[in-house]
């Protein structure tokens, strides 16, 4: 089976969903991505990444409960699919392998 290539933001969003577990919806995902990456990531960037991950079949989403502070609107919860976990593991292996080879090069540079 072909490897799924992950973009930088897709990678961050997948990790955020993994970490948040049952509480992975728009706002906590955005907060988690900003906090962990140290970047000022825009909401639009995260939502587009979420949409792309859904289209790639790496995450699934379902509507949850609505609350008064949301004006009665439901939350959309995201969850990693097995293919999403597999993509994360493969991406991690690829980066680890790359760094094993380039660590010494970087030190000499």
């Amino acid at each position: 089976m072909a490897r799924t290539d992950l973009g930088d933001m897709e990678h961050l969003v997948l990790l955020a969903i993994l970490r948040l577990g049952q509480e992975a919806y728009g706002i906590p995902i955005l907060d988690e991505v900003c906090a962990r990456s140290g970047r000022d990531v825009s909401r639009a960037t995260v939502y587009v990444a979420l949409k792309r991950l859904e289209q790639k079949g790496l995450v699934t989403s379902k509507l949850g409960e609505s609350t008064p502070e949301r004006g009665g609107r439901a939350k959309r919860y995201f969850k990693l699919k097995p293919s999403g976990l597999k993509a994360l593991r493969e991406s991690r292996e690829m980066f680890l392998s790359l760094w094993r080879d380039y660590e010494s090069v970087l030190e000499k540079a």
Partner: protein
Amino acid sequence: MATQNLATDHAEYGGLPRSVRLLARLVPSADRESLLGDLVEDAAYRDLRGARRTAWLASECAAVGAGLSIERLRAWFVMPPVREVVAGLAIDGRGVLRHSSTGVVLRAIVFVGSIATLVLGVELLVGSLMSAAGF
């Protein structure tokens, strides 16, 4: 009086200004309500009120709407978003059937039909061009 206060609170925290409701049309129907819910919740968390809340909601809504629209446009050239089309038709169609007369429903059907035909035409054209180009 209590009812009036409750209504004001609801408008402040859950209601949306007209400009934001218009901008929300940029967001695909399937994602619209959950996105607006996120924005309303975040605005309340940031304690935004009045004109500042309206401006913040409008700018966030426009940015996300534009981003998702561009993404959807890009996706059209990769794979027809069948799930989105069906979800959008179901959500918007339910709203039209609930609140509108027969004339409006007929106009909506003609509009949706013409858009669907245009999209199909563009997809066929792009597909043919890409096949001819060897993709």
